[in-house]
């Protein structure tokens, strides 16, 4: 096997590695460097300014707003999505009528539910955002006219136009579009838990809720944890950018009174609308730190003894 091994390794790695280095690694390194300059992105000339961008960022009210919104996303969205998904997955797998001889039973038609729940996952986030943008339309959108149809004429919120509601409206859309994925993911994990465990618990007189918290959840912990991180990264990154950018246009972008602006959108605005590329990369570095801190925190808090079964 030694003959020509090195040439083979180099030959196979060269193209993928070159592509990856040029389009991914190099820009990442550059952006950290640029965050210490006064580069506008428009002219090729720039100088080093040290930590000026960073101190400017700390005084930037809109930065704090977008950081706050992004952190809200990273805390609330995984909590709601993973919680709902665990609930649905438990209902699917354990909520069925008890059959003879089976300790637990899935509901009838569970595969049908799983197919339907997964729909939003295959759709582009753009389609989802545009659909909901129209549903939220205060005058003729689907939600407000449905409220009218059932006689609630007095309750006609401005949804995306209301600074107090807009952020919540955006989060609902992200939850709607991601829950199905986690239901299917957790269902797969639950189905791989051996049935004897449930039978033993049942013999010991445990009801289904004890079973869930004492057996299902601990054995599913690894999947839940990685789901949590995955959802958090989505909520901090591209997914939240798309939803906020499309749904809340506003005069400045990012909703009325910057009520829905998030970090990735702010980076985008600074770089490609305001011609402040260096400052944009500074905010990007802050986003990177937040993402890494989030992942590290979830790993640390969620650390349990690994259960083998």
């Amino acid at each position, binding site marked *: 096997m030694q003959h020509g091994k090195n040439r083979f390794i180099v030959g196979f*790695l060269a193209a993928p590695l070159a592509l990856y280095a*040029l*389009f991914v690694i190099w820009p990442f390194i550059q952006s950290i460097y640029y965050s210490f300059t006064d580069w506008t992105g428009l002219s090729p000339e720039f100088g080093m300014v040290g930590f000026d961008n960073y101190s400017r960022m700390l005084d930037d009210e809109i930065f704090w707003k977008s950081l706050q919104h992004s952190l809200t996303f990273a805390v609330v969205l995984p909590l709601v999505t993973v919680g709902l998904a665990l609930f649905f997955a438990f209902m*699917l797998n354990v909520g069925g009528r008890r059959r003879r*001889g089976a300790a637990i039973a899935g509901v009838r038609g569970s595969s049908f539910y*799983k197919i339907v729940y997964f729909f939003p996952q295959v759709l582009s986030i753009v389609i989802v955002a545009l659909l909901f943008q129209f549903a939220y339309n205060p005058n003729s959108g689907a939600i407000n006219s449905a409220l009218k149809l059932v006689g609630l004429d007095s309750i006609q919120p401005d949804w995306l136009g209301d600074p107090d509601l807009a952020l919540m409206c955006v989060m609902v859309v992200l939850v709607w579009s991601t829950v199905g*994925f986690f239901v299917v*993911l957790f269902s797969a994990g639950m189905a791989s838990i051996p049935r004897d465990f449930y039978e033993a618990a049942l013999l010991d007189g445990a009801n289904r809720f004890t079973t869930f918290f004492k057996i299902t959840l601990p054995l599913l912990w690894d999947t839940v944890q990685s789901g949590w991180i995955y959802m958090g990264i989505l909520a901090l990154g591209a997914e939240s950018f798309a939803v906020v950018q499309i749904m809340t246009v506003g005069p400045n972008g990012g909703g009325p009174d910057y009520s829905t602006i998030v970090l*990735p959108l702010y980076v985008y605005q600074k770089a490609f609308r305001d011609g402040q590329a260096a400052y944009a990369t500074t905010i990007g570095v802050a986003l990177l730190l937040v993402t890494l801190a989030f992942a590290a925190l979830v790993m640390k808090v969620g650390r349990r003894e690994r259960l083998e079964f």
Partner: protein
Amino acid sequence: MKTTDTASTGLDKTPGSPGGVDTTPIKTTAPATRKASKREGGVLNVFSHGVLIIWAIMVVMPLLWAVMTSFKTDKAIFTAPWSLPDKLHFENWSRAWTDAHMSDYFLNTVLVVGGSLVGTLLFGSMAAYVLARFDFPGNRFIYFLFIGGMSFPIILALVPLFYVMQNMALLNSLHGLILVYIAYSLPFTVFFLAAFFRTLPSSVAEAACIDGASHTRTFFQVMLPMAKPGLISVGIFNFLGQWNQYLLPTVLNTEQEQKVLSQGLVQLAVSQGYKGDWSGLFAGLVMAMLPVLAAYIIFQRQVVAGLTAGAVK
């Protein structure tokens, strides 16, 4: 992957296999508790069906509503959003397809995703194979360099990347977009396929080597066919990710003629809102939605396996 398979099929069949073994625990339970647990099961069953159906309706409703709306006139959309269309206005669809350039967006997307999917699978499997099965200095480092890309926020790299692309004259071109798609799909693809190649037996490759096959030939004629299930999973994952990609083209591909589907829809929403052609927008949305949904329903099991496999591992 295996776990997902059991999830979809195993649930409904469970009473079959353990049935014979489990008659004992039922006999030992007192009749009274059995009755109680049965009733508890009944209430829970109704409750869980109720909850599950409500969410199913919440998922399907917006989609059906969009299909219905795409056949209505603009006036009807605004005056009666929930009523059925008076007749099926197919002209909305033809208007969206030709006047609103949906056909161009489709073509661009097919070209970009086709090119980048082939490239991603080829480059991804080459790198993953070498990293998974050969020992050489720097192996671990390169592997983690690839893996690290999964958790970094793309938007941070996009600012310099825009200028890198500009300098290489790749901005606003489909082939430039293809290269970027491949590069940003590599982390997950390498991660997934490296894990897959590690599980394949090495005896087959050794046999091929003894028979005089070169490393390259072993890879293409022996290992790649063996890795087909993994390639399908990761292929579906990348297909959906690239087909639905929005952030990368929004920044790197702003020329009107080169726009892909996701950008085109946003463009449509902005311009049609301006013209007041909402029915055309909905026709465009449904047009973009239906092929993906149809493909998903047909290849349901493979799609679910492909998308969840990465997270389970």
